[in-house]
Structures are given as structure tokens and as C-alpha cells.
């Protein structure tokens, strides 16, 4: 048999991606002090072996700042993705199991939230929670649930209609037991993949909203802050202030997206044939 098939490759890729992400998160936490250290003897240095990402107008090491920003992004991303996925799970299941007006209300809310352009909604939420860290977390967490909630609702509805679940109901199996034995095993992979696929969005929106000035405070070396500040210096040719931090962010988001995509494909029923 083929020893090097798609799934084995996927598992190794997954492990590598996770390792890189953990490494970035840890390095960022360690580099926090270095990221804040100013040194006016080494202002505005272009990238060199000593400072791979260059330095900014206060002589801060851009590599350290980028790493710290990424680690911040990863942590906020994990937190917000987890919260919004949980909201999605609760609302999706509730609306599908209760039906009737509860279903109508949840569906209406989903349409409502999806009707406001995403960035605008995150902005509004972040304002309501007073900007800063709390604002960003609340804004991203409370705005990302609708699409996953819709998926979970559909999934639960489909399971509820499935013959084996209806048979179990007629046989008098308790609802809790049906939920645990029949619904959960199907729902969990869906939920988990949905959760992982939320990471990239969460991280991107955190960076976006911070870039616009509604998120993390300018003192924190968040990627959004770094890029927003870099705008003042781009016209004078200090391209490295924007290019490398942004590229690293793309790298991290790409890793998360790739992990999510691999998991989705592996858990997709049709993937047994690939």
C-alpha cells in the first residue's frame, strides 16, 4: 500500500504548523521586554543580520516587536474564537432543538448580525465595551458566531430528522442520552473544525480593528498598532516597518487557516475516498 498518502502528509503538516505557532507565541512572550526597549543610537535601521526586521524611529527591534505582536494576536485569536464558537454552539443547538419562536428569534438575530458589515459591527461592539483589550475581545467574539451557528443549527436539524435518532426517540431513549450518544459524536468534529476556522478571521479582525484605532492601545506592540504607525514613515522609504510585520501576520494566519482546512478535509465524510 502507499505509505506516503495525503492523510499522513496532513498529520505531519498539522504537527509542524502547531509547533511553529507555539514557538511564535512563546518567543513573543519572551521578547516582550526587548520589544519595548528603545535605543536612539540605532534608529531607523534597515534590515540587517543584527536586526533582521530592522528598527523603528525609536530604535526598537522590529523583530522583537513583531514576535510580541504575533503572540498577542494568537492569544486574542484563541480566546475570541473559543468564545464565539461556544456562542454559536449554544445558539445553534438551542434554536434547532427548541424550534418555534426560539428558532425564529435566533435566525432573525443571525440575519441581523450578518446584515451589518463586519468591520462596522466590530467597531460598534468595541465602542460599547470601551475600546482597548476588553473592546477588542468583546467585539471580535460577539460578531463571529452567526455563520457557525447557522451550520450547527442545520446539522442538528438534519440529525434530529435522521431515522436512527427518531427510532431512538420512539424507543423511549432519554433526550440526554440521545444527545450524548447520537448528536454529540456528529456535532463535535463540525464544531471543532468551525472553531479552528474561526481563528484566522478572529486574528485578522483583531488586527484590522486595532489598525483603525478601536482596538488595543498604541502602547502595546500589536500588529495593528505597528502597521498603523508605519503609515507615517512609509512615504520616506521605511518599507520594512510595514512589510515584515505584515508578512509575519499573513504567515501566522495562513498556518491557522491551513490547519483548519486540513482538519475540515480529514473529517469530511467524502474524504475517505481521496
Amino acid at each position, binding site marked *: *500500500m*502507499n505509505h506516503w*498518502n495525503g*492523510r*499522513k502528509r496532513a*498529520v505531519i503538516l498539522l504537527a509542524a504548523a502547531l509547533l511553529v505557532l507555539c514557538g511564535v507565541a512563546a518567543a513573543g512572550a519572551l521578547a516582550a521586554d526587548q520589544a519595548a526597549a528603545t535605543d536612539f543610537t540605532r534608529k531607523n535601521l534597515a534590515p540587517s543580520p543584527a536586526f533582521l526586521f530592522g528598527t523603528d524611529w525609536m530604535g526598537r527591534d522590529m523583530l522583537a516587536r513583531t514576535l510580541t505582536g504575533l503572540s498577542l494576536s494568537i492569544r486574542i485569536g484563541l480566546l475570541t474564537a473559543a468564545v464565539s464558537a461556544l456562542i454559536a454552539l449554544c445558539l445553534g443547538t438551542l434554536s434547532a432543538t427548541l424550534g418555534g419562536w426560539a428558532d425564529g428569534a435566533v435566525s432573525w438575530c443571525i440575519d441581523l448580525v450578518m446584515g451589518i458589515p463586519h468591520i462596522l459591527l466590530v467597531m460598534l461592539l468595541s465602542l460599547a465595551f470601551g475600546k482597548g483589550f476588553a473592546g477588542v475581545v468583546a467585539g471580535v467574539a460577539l460578531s463571529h458566531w452567526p455563520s457557525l451557528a447557522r451550520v450547527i443549527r442545520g446539522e442538528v436539524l438534519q440529525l434530529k430528522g435522521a431515522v436512527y435518532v427518531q427510532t431512538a426517540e420512539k424507543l423511549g431513549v432519554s433526550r440526554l442520552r440521545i444527545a450524548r450518544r447520537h448528536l454529540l459524536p456528529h456535532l463535535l468534529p463540525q464544531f471543532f473544525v468551525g472553531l479552528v476556522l474561526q481563528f484566522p478571521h478572529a486574528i485578522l479582525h483583531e488586527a484590522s480593528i486595532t489598525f483603525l484605532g478601536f482596538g488595543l492601545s498604541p502602547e502595546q506592540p500589536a500588529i495593528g498598532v505597528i502597521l498603523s504607525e508605519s503609515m507615517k514613515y512609509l512615504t520616506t522609504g521605511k518599507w520594512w516597518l510595514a512589510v515584515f510585520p505584515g508578512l509575519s501576520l499573513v504567515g501566522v494566519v495562513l498556518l491557522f487557516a491551513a490547519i483548519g482546512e486540513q482538519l475540515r478535509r480529514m473529517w469530511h465524510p467524502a*474524504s*475517505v*475516498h*481521496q
Partner: protein
Amino acid sequence: MEPILEVKELSISFTQYSRGTMQTELPVIRSLSLTVAPGQVVAVVGSSGSGKSLLAHGILGILPYNSHRAGELFFLGQPLTQERMEQVRGKEMVLVPQGVTYLDPLMQVGPQLWKGSRDGTHRKRSRTALARYGLGEEVEGLYPFELSGGMARRVLIATAAMEQPRLVIADEPTPGLDARSARRVLGHFRELAEGGAGVLLITHDLELALTIAHRVAVFYAGETVEEAEASDFAEGRLRHPYTRALWNALPQNGFTPIPGTQPGPGEVGEGCPFAPRCPRQGPECLGKVPYMEWNGGRVRCLHPEGETV
């Protein structure tokens, strides 16, 4: 007379993941042999889930990308390679599929029949074919969702009839129809055979198949277990225990059910797949069972009914 289609030891398997990252080859059709002569209706009868549709797809060269085909195929005496399949399908070799889902839901019947060709000959041929099955010109302007079940079936047969095919492969053409319409639809296939074409009728319904078929190939767990003349059934000249069991399960023959279930793909070992359910099985049935000439037909059994001649 030279047979239209000859299938020798055809096998079709899929590559898929069994557990985790392990990949296995899953055989769905293992050793399938049959012959279709001109003017003949050959029915392939097997219960649902035995991989019958794949036989049709395998002959037409439209198997999914993760499948693998082995064995020998001959069409009009020439080897039937993938290239040849692509040349002859839709012309000398046509498929009549199960139902309305095989028609493009957003395209009117007419353009579907014409296959994108704008010239008049296609229109004339399709009009003749529709008329042959009692469908008027106005049907060309209908969308598939506007067709009744019987109409859809006749449109699908018209797609075959307008091509003047040498081989017609009908894949379960009757489900969802009442007994009268089903018999009418099967009658159309018989007509095609009387016109000189070979008809391969794939069905789960032995009773209906016997109303029009000349020969019957019985299909079990991916193998042909018996080939018989249609008349053998009424005359009691059956060979394989599974054929006997199928026959006995018909309402007019006592409605006797067979105990046990048909093994799925990948659950079959080297020996006879029917052995666990067979009243005549012995220890030797766990070994390889050859497909042999027996009593005027062919059978894959070590303890067949009847005498050799």
C-alpha cells in the same frame, strides 16, 4: 453471431482510507462476466448495494477518479479501452439512467436531447424519438421538474433511441413507477432489442426482469454467481443456491425470505460470499470457487443444483 458486449472477469475497486491514515483498496465488483448478443435483453439482477450501477459506469468509462478497473471488455469484437469507450459512448453505446435527476434541472428537455448541437438533424431525430414514445413537441420546451415520473423515463429512453445504438445499458429504469408503467417502460427496451440492439438491463427486480429478459445474470456481493436463460426460472432449471433463494423470495413462489444479509464491499474473503447463508455449503466453500459451464448456463458454485450435461 458475434456478441455485442463481452465482459470477462471485470473488477472495480476504490482506494479509500479505512482507519486514520491507512489506505486500502476496496473491491466493489470482483469477478463479473457476462455476454450480450444482438437482439438480446440480458438482465443483471442483484439486490441494492451490490454495486450494480458501477457495472454500467465501468462499461461506459465514467467511473469516479479514485476507482480502478481491471479485467477484459470487448465491444463488437474489439477490445473496449478507455479511449474507445469515450468514442462510442453516447453513440453506439448508450445509457438510460434511473430517473429525472439525471437531467440538467435548469435546461429544457429539447436542448438536452440535442446535446448542444444546433443543426437540424439532431432536432429531427429527437422529435422522432419523442414521438415514438408518445411525447409531443411541446415536451421539448419543458424543464425536468415539469415532467411526471413516467414522462421523465420516456424522455430518458428517447435520449437512447435517437442515437441508433448497438448497446443500450439501462440502469434501474423502473423504480417509482406503478406496475403498468413499469411494464410499459420495459416493453420499450424489448423493442430496442427487437431492432437489433443488445440491451443490458440492470435491476434489483427479478420478477420484472423476467418479463422481458432473454438471459439473466445474477449478481451477489460483487460477483456474477449464475448466468441462466430466462426460461430456466419457470422450468426450475436453476444452478446457484442464491438464485434459488431469490426465486423463492418472489411473492408467487412462497415469499420465503433468505436469512442473513449480503456482505458489503471489503467484507468478503477468498471463498464464496454466499457460503454463510447457504444451505448447501461445506468447508471447501471457503476456498476459491471457479466460474464454470453448468447445465446449459454458467455458475460459480461447488455444489450447484442439477446435473452437468
